[in-house]
């Protein structure tokens, strides 16, 4: 199974995971790592390594960070070279649910593309979409 790791500012990662699990059920092979206000990059990298160590590695790991160019993305990118790991920024609940739902039957690269596409599809002006349906 592909491991999933969510890495964010504040406690977003924990809450994302808890909320996604409330939707799709509690699953193994998923971890959340939060960058707290007092922590620097070395602490975050250490927490990331520990969380990674507890995940299944055989089929690779998909890492979801909150914001491109933020400290979580800065912390993780130096560690990814040579690893069976993909990293997407801009995690939202839709992407996480998609990742949990599809990781059992896709390869890491296919799952990465799927979650990226779903993420892009999930950012929508829903009022506009709704009104156009009404007409």
């Amino acid at each position, binding site marked *: 199974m592909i491991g999933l790791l969510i890495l964010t500012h504040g406690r977003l990662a924990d809450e994302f995971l808890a909320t996604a699990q409330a939707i799709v059920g509690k699953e193994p092979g998923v971890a959340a790592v939060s960058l707290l206000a007092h922590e620097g990059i070395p602490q975050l990298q250490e927490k990331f390594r520990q969380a990674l160590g507890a995940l299944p590695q055989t089929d690779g790991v998909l890492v979801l960070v909150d*914001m491109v160019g*933020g400290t979580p993305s800065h912390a993780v990118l130096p560690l990814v070279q040579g690893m069976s790991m993909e990293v997407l920024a801009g995690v939202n609940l839709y992407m996480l649910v998609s990742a949990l739902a599809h990781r059992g039957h896709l390869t890491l690269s296919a799952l990465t593309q799927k979650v990226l596409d779903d993420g892009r599809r999930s950012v929508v002006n829903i009022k506009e979409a709704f009104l156009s349906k009404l007409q």
Partner: protein
Amino acid sequence: MPLALVRIDDRLIHGQVVEGWAPRVQATHLVVASDQAAADPVQRALLSLAVPAHLRISCCSIQEAARCSRVGEWDADRVLLLFANANDAALWVEAGGTCPSINVGGLHYAPAKTQVSTALFLNHEDLRVFQQLQRKGIRLEVRALPLDPPLDFWELLAQTVPHLQP
């Protein structure tokens, strides 16, 4: 043109700098002065990730940053100058960099350092370096974001960790 802001922050370029400070001080050019970052292609690539297109970004050694300040290399820009730690800022000042004040933004947790505020952890050695900066007449203000109240570095220390001495 004087520097728009000089900041010490071990996270270097991140949201607080790009979204908070850069627009506030109307920076046009972010400069990371760090020997370590300048010599590391991974770090340099990371720093330019997600910096908006209207901001120029460069990464140089501390000596090079001091040279740029001395010869007026950045005179046409509004430069936001970033250091990863107080020592780098002091080396820049020793090499001829000048500024009236330094924003102490974040020096995050490290073993054997004392917590002063949410994102500020210091040891005796750090204090000695900040003292050097102080002796050069540089005002030190602690502030993560522009809209936070600016705190005088030494007053904050006296209030929160009076036992911590250089």
